[in-house]
């Protein structure tokens, strides 16, 4: 175990996978000598060279497409988008191409590619640099979507993603990079598609992931002082969803709150609520709730951004209203 940051954990995962698998290579803007704006690819160029740690022009659409082509012929590209918001300039390659080529080919090709990007708000980066896209991407069949909240999960899930053999959207959060945690040294992996209970509780199930998972844990502490014991589930993988873990928990608590930073509308909160009613309609003792960003673009000023994005206090309030 070493106590390292989320960014360092990702860096370890990349380094270890590149060492054992010569098919793995990286593409992205300023990932080489600069080591990435968020330092995730720090020093990798020294170890693996500029061919495998490849700086790109500002041509997201093309270099994601290049990743697809390289993956189709057997390499394992890990493509970095500097901000998830830039997935929009590469959207055709992600949605029309990466997600569909295997299916449209009747299974004759596969796309073992990872697209990494950080997303989210909380830093005043404005509407074009603060979005959360997991619910959009979850609508697209053919993509696996992961969003770890801790350094250990980040390392283990990035390894699984690189090995998955399928297109994976690997979602980081700009305000998680400096979070520290204990991370196993050397090789291990966290399975795709497995949620984890990050806190046990009997009174309510709070489902979250990525940065708002930390908010949920913070809220759970406050709630505990008020006598409410929240079970906090970290989805870790958005698609495919681990409904078993959710349903199991809800069976025990009878209450459900889903929290995410992505906008509420047609979000994962709605999806999980719909599935609970489909798969286990009798488990809930009261109507479930979800909490996401309010339906406006993300503003810059702190007073505004805090009003739009879910905060720990909002979670506390939402839970209290369910008792």
């Amino acid at each position: 175990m070493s106590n390292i940051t989320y960014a360092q954990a990702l860096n370890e995962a990349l380094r270890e996978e590149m060492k054992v698998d010569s098919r793995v290579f990286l593409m992205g803007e300023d990932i080489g000598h600069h080591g990435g704006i968020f330092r995730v690819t720090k020093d990798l160029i020294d170890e693996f060279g500029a061919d495998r740690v490849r700086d790109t022009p500002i041509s997201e659409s093309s270099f994601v497409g290049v990743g697809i082509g390289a993956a189709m012929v057997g390499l394992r590209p890990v493509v970095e988008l500097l901000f998830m918001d830039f997935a929009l300039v590469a959207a055709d390659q992600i949605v029309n191409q990466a997600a569909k080529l295997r299916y449209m080919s009747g299974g004759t090709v596969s796309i073992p590619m990872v697209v990494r990007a950080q997303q989210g708000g909380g830093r005043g980066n404005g509407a074009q640099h603060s979005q959360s896209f997991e619910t959009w991407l979850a609508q697209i069949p053919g993509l696996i979507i992961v969003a770890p909240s801790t350094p250990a999960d980040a390392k283990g899930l990035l390894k699984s993603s690189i090995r998955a053999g399928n297109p994976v959207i690997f979602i980081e959060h700009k305000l998680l990079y400096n979070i520290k945690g204990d991370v196993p040294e050397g090789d291990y992996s966290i399975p795709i598609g497995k949620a984890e209970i990050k806190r046990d509780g009997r009174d309510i199930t709070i489902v979250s992931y990525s940065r708002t998972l930390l908010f949920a844990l913070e809220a759970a502490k406050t709630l505990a002082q008020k006598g409410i014991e929240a079970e906090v589930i970290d989805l870790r993988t958005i698609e495919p969803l681990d409904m078993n873990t959710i349903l199991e928990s809800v069976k025990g608590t009878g209450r459900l709150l889903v929290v995410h930073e992505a906008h509420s509308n047609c979000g994962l909160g709605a999806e999980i609520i719909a599935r609970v009613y489909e798969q286990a309609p009798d488990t809930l003792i009261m109507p479930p709730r979800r909490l996401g960003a309010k339906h406006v673009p993300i503003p810059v000023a702190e007073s505004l951004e805090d009003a739009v994005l879910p905060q720990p206090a909002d979670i506390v309030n939402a839970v209290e209203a369910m008792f």
Partner: protein
Amino acid sequence: MPLTPERLQDAYRQMLIIRKFEETIRSLYQQGKIRGSFHPCVGQEATAVGGCWALRKDDYLTCTYRGHGQAIAKGLNLQAAMAEMLGKETGCSKGKGGSMHFTDPSVGLLGANAIVAGGVPHAAGAALASQLQKKDNVAIAYFGEGAVNQGVFLESLNLAVIWKLPLILVCENNLYSEMSPSHETTSVVETYKRAAGFGFEAMQVDGNDIEAVYNAVEQAAARARAGGGPTYIEAMTYRLWGHMMGDPEIYRTKEEVAKAKENEPIVRCGKRLIELGCTDADLSRLDGEAEAIIAAALQFAESSSAPQPADAFTDVFI
């Protein structure tokens, strides 16, 4: 090394096979047996055969919805191609991809694409993989002249040059993009000049002359294999049929089409073979062979079964 007279005969038959494939599809379409759209490549067979035959089976190819000819020339099994058009489980994509998505990595065909220019970066990616692995495979991407105004295409021009990719870009300039004359929408009508502006080795060839296309691609491939980087080949050609079935073709005159027919690649290749000593009987024999191959493919496809509904849910992930 240019095509020998013998190979040219084979290539002639290959073009006939492609032509007859498209003619068969048209008739199936008219019988209501084909779903979706069908974008015929009739008139463009020389770019397909000339280009793909100048490459190896383990070289990579991406093409477009109009790429039946290229897919077949690269080696796609004809029966599987025909079955795919009819949406049969024996199709090359098991009925999932249809007319616009022929794929067969076993012959290097990484996929036809229904998004204009969408497949161009995939070929660049395959070329990069070859370069990274120090292999000598090259990649070829076909696209129409309308594609030169799509962002991802232009971005890929830059990438290919700075990374010196073993990539061959073949623009099939058939003068029209859908129902519009491309010169109305493209600032520089000679698209190879635009590519040259990105630093590409770039040229224009007569796309209805199969030997010219073959030679250009062969040289580009040799250059690419030797680490000389990408080449852009603008092959001037003409699509003799509409953009797709149902195109009223109001954007061109019957005279223009009739005139283009005089210059079409199969007729021209036939004349060339006669010059080289073939007889009319030789040509008829080649025609008959092509006919038989297509008939067998059709027979196979028609007698195959439609996929089971449950098959819809496989092949998403490995």
